[in-house]
């Protein structure tokens, strides 16, 4: 009863009822965390348990823009909270400000698709990575983008002139499917004659489906308030580019999380549910710059001449006076989603006023509204973009208005529908399989 009263004060009864009823896996009891001898106990209704699938109100109450969208947004937040929950047992999310997360224990793409093409290590070996290794400077791995920029994408350069870095990880269900079907190398994919169908999360059977996570990081530096980032010490790798005289080098740096995609395969959304989060200081909405605010990827003084355009390439961080990525969000966060963000932020602040996770917001959730209608299942919203991961594909500005173009403007489902294996077969909405290498003999 005490829990209800506290939460009612925080987010209102309606929001609470919707939140709790839509969170299929919520722990019925408030969670309490402690830190090995620390006497501070924290109680929160937030849960470390991932949802299996979305939970929606009964059909008569389903309205696409409101109740259904809210159901999917709740699924996204439930997933985010569970994935960013402390990997160390006995703690509550953000209890001590920041924490190492569950998703950072997932297998990274480079741990699954080995350069040698060999079988990866079992799940329990190598997945509990202590340090992160960041090499990618494009949203997709080097084989597909890196500095070569098909579709005019990437690289994303922060206001300190540094490349953003990206990584991709997957959960155990996805990893085991790849492992069991020998999809971790080119030869295995070419001999795989079945259709790739990753496991699906299911509320009825209480089984988890495939989950993949794509993270974007910025190197923390001048102007950054490091208390507002989930941060880790990473090994920054710069791949050799002999034609430009760049040697293969690595160094250590603190990086802050600026974007997080979560893709979840479920039985009701076989085209996957696509949830995307950002750090709140990333970018302003188009035409709504907050005076004097420090943005990670926008400089008020630089103007909008180069807005949402890829910077000079190849970008050399060592050259002074260049204009880094100047980014604005072209589609504002939906008001209902923003209201939910505010509610969850209050719950996070209640755990600890310095909780870093309060500085992350759900930008949106895309799902197939009519999954059986076509291969793409009629995605909604039609377009969705993360300013750090689909920076240059958000749409264009014409006569002061945002113009979206099907097949060009970012849509998770429409784009991932084109993914294939090395065997030339559909890859079930992931481009990861295409990063597999041939077996080295």
């Amino acid at each position: 009863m005490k829990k209800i009263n506290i939460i009612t004060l925080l987010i209102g009864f309606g929001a609470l009822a919707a939140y709790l009823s839509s969170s299929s896996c919520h722990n019925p009891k408030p969670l309490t965390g402690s830190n090995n001898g620390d006497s501070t106990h924290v109680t929160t209704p937030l849960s470390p348990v991932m949802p299996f699938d979305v939970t929606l109100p009964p059909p008569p109450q389903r309205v696409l823009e409101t109740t259904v969208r809210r159901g999917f947004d709740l699924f996204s937040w439930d997933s985010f909270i569970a994935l960013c929950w402390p990997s160390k047992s006995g703690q509550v999310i953000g209890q001590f400000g920041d924490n190492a997360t569950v998703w950072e224990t997932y297998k990274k793409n480079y741990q699954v698709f080995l350069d040698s093409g060999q079988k990866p290590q079992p799940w329990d070996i190598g997945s509990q990575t202590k340090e992160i290794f960041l090499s990618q400077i494009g949203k997709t791995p080097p084989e597909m983008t890196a500095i070569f920029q098909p579709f005019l994408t990437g690289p994303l350069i922060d206001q300190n002139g540094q490349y953003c870095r990206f990584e991709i990880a997957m959960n155990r269900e996805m990893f085991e499917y790849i492992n069991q079907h020998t999809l971790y190398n080119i030869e295995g994919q070419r001999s795989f004659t079945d259709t790739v169908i990753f496991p699906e999360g299911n509320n009825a059977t209480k089984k988890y489906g495939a989950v993949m996570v794509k993270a974007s990081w910025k190197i923390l530096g001048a102007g950054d308030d490091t208390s507002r980032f989930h941060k880790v010490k990473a090994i920054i790798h710069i791949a050799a580019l002999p034609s430009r005289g760049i040697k293969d080098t690595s160094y250590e740096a603190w990086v802050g999380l600026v974007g997080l995609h979560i893709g979840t395969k479920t039985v009701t959304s076989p085209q996957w549910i696509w949830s995307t989060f950002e750090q709140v200081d990333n970018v302003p909405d188009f035409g709504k710059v907050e005076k004097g605010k420090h943005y990670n990827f926008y400089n008020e003084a630089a103007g909008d001449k180069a807005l949402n355009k890829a910077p000079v390439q190849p970008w050399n961080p060592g050259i002074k006076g260049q204009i880094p990525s100047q980014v604005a969000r072209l589609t504002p966060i939906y008001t209902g989603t923003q209201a939910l963000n505010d509610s969850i932020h209050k719950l996070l602040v209640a755990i600890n006023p310095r909780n870093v996770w309060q500085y992350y917001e759900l930008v949106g959730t895309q799902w197939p509204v009519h999954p059986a209608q076509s291969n793409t299942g009629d995605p909604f919203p039609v377009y969705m973009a993360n300013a750090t991961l689909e920076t240059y594909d958000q749409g264009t500005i014409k006569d002061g208005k945002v113009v979206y173009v099907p097949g060009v403007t970012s849509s998770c489902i429409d784009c991932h529908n084109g993914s294939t294996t090395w065997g030339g077969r559909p890859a079930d909405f992931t481009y990861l399989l295409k990063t597999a290498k041939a077996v080295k003999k």
Partner: protein
Amino acid sequence: MTLDEFVSLSSALTGYPASTLKPARDTQMIAQTLYEQLNLPSNNIPSAQLDLLTLVWNQISGTPPPQLEAAVKEKIIDNLAITRLAQNIIYLWFFGIWYDLSKNPASFTSPNIDHVVSPLAYKNGLVWGEMGAHPMGFSTGVFGYWENVPQLPAIN
């Protein structure tokens, strides 16, 4: 003309169920986008023509389905005062294009008025499904779909 009247009239003109033209969970708002063309000043639709089409449609919209097609032909298609506007509504749904009402669409002579209503309206034009095809650069098929013979809709 209200949106609901526009959708029910469009259903009679195109032969597609209203629930297809405007699904209960409408992700792309095509019906709304096309409907807005009727009130766009630059489209130069004489208000008397639009009012008459609305009036006629309301008079026959309750006709039982077996007789509805004949009623639409007699009262709208064969009515020279409104047939061109009805024709434009059909073009809207099939091509996502608005043509100059005062011209023959086949002549393509009004570059300042003829226009693609929106990228989504073009992409969702009914003509693509009728042809068993898709607009250039956009397909919802899985990789390799082109190996298979297109499935054409059954024509009665």
